[in-house]
């Protein structure tokens, strides 16, 4: 069953088009000109129960805008959206009962109140029973290790502490869908690891998760599906593995050699299409190859015919490479490879 259904969703913002300086500002008062920009430009998406989706793209790609359309904060310019079977911007309050949201740069805690009071306020807003609240809170306190933070006011918390409390606040009513917008931004490695472990547990419990992030570790650790968005459009939607197969097929074999010299051109001649480079002052060779063109065994045998191989390791592409290439605009260069929904 699809928890989230978005169909050709568009959101166009109108921005005042001011010239530079005071003159530009004054002219804008008389003659108003605007530029229209589609932050989200025809997005279609289905997310099923229990899926964990990473929603990735460069700054300004439309990630946060999509989340705000899915949570009913923004009203779409056109297109359809249903979450838990509800149109979020039309039934904002009903929608809010069935989702949990964390915006990494904002807090849902009451700044001047102890964290516990914020939680109790959310309990009353969601109409949770005493037993249900107790049980959810105990579980979250244990998983996120926030027991000793409950009596501090939110303004006294560090970023990492606040983020853990915010996650608890978003999950207190056990929503079937959770949206996290950059939940690990600005956190140190230890806290990140703890949050990722927590998120894996949440997903394992059957919660649908949509996660926007710049942090590739978040994706590899938590999500099984990757949606890449650029300039308001989905440029890829598929399994994490499949993305790597499609966009980062290249593997690199690093071999340590017993002696030099080795004929690089000799190796290259045996492996058409592969790139051979010298490493470690001639005591090593790196061969970058496409596994569909050459098997690892073929690469190794080509190397062994030119030199004695002492040790070797194969480097697999990481999601980093995919996204880095995408940010650099290289994915657009090969439109034929795009996969849509």
């Amino acid at each position, binding site marked *: 069953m699809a928890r989230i259904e978005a169909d050709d969703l568009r959101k166009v913002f109108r921005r005042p088009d001011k010239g530079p300086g005071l003159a530009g500002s004054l002219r804008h008062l008389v003659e108003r000109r605007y530029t229209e920009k589609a932050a989200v430009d025809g997005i279609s998406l289905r997310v099923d129960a229990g899926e964990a989706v990473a929603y990735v793209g460069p700054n300004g790609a439309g990630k946060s805008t999509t989340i705000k359309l899915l949570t009913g904060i923004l009203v779409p310019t056109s297109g359809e959206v249903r979450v838990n079977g509800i149109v979020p911007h039309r039934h904002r309050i009903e929608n809010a009962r069935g989702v949990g949201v964390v915006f990494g740069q904002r807090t*849902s805690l009451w700044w001047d109140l102890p964290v516990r009071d914020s939680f109790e306020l959310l309990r009353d*807003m969601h109409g949770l029973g005493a037993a249900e609240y107790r049980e959810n809170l105990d579980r979250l306190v244990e998983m996120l290790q926030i027991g000793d933070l409950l009596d501090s006011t939110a303004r006294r918390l560090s970023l990492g502490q606040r983020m853990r409390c915010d996650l608890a606040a978003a999950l207190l009513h056990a929503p*079937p869908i959770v949206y996290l917008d950059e939940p690990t931004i600005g956190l140190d490695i230890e806290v990140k690891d703890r949050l990722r472990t927590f998120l894996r547990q949440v997903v394992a419990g059957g919660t649908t998760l949509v996660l926007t992030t710049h942090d590739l570790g978040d994706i590899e650790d938590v999500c099984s599906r990757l949606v890449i968005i650029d300039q308001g459009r989905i440029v890829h939607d598929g399994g994490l593995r499949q993305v790597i197969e499609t966009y980062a097929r290249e593997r690199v074999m690093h071999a340590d050699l017993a002696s030099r010299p080795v004929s690089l051109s000799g190796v290259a001649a045996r492996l058409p299409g592969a790139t051979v480079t010298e490493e470690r002052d001639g005591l090593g060779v790196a061969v970058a190859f496409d596994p569909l063109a050459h098997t690892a065994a073929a690469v190794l045998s080509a190397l062994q015919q030119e030199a004695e191989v002492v040790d070797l390791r194969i480097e697999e592409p990481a999601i980093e490479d995919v996204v880095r290439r995408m940010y650099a605009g290289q994915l657009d260069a090969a439109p034929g490879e795009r996969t849509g929904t």
Partner: protein
Amino acid sequence: MTALAAGVAPAVGLRRATRAYRAMSRAAFRSLVAYQTSFLFGLLATTLAAVAMLYLWRSVLAAGTVRGFDWPAMRAYLLVAFVAGSLVSSYVDYRMAGRIQQGDVAMDLVRPVDYQKSRFAEALGFGVYELGTGLVVAAAAAALFGGVPAPARGGVVPFAVSAVLVMPLRFGIVYVSALVVFWTRNYVGVQSARIALVTLFSGGLVPLAFFPGWLQGLAAALPFAGMASTPALLYVGGLSGAAAWRAVAVQAAWTAGLWWLGRAMWRGASRQLTVHGG
């Protein structure tokens, strides 16, 4: 799974809503403790202004009655206006405008509560505190200046109705003016304009009876009179009989009108809402 509201009986929905808004009122009241210092400074400023005004009017009225006000009646008028004016001070709109400007309003929108009712619930929570301190200051000032006469006979019922309306009416004006931030992106100008209008037309500074006739007519029809002048005049007997009920009716009509204006503006604002800062 969470029960969605569509499948919830009205009585259950109402009970749940009451619980949510009561919790918000309590939270607002408690969070004032964090601002107590700044609140007390604000209170000090308004108290000094009220005391200065009492001295000023005492010397003005030393020669006798002016425009129907003798000194004891003016005292009562000013103190009732002072208490009314201490309600819905700047917490509600400051917070609201700040959250809209910073984009934190996004967090308010993912809560399962009505935005306007939530702000009203918070205003009520602050109001308990504001009313309490306002009454204490007014009572101290009354003792200092020789007491305040009891409310005018026959005017008690319209006064009571008017006093109850002060809070939601003031909320309406503050709420509507804070929503303007969605369009202006800046609150300083809007707030100054509102404070200027309220100061002049609520009769809190100078009773509306001192205005020229045409301006009095205008002021009586505007929403601001109900924020201070109407309850204060009812208390001292400056309005009685049909005129009293007419003033209360104007006050009630504006209270309801501003509530619905706020709802309409919210609908418009949320449609063209752009949330700032990512």
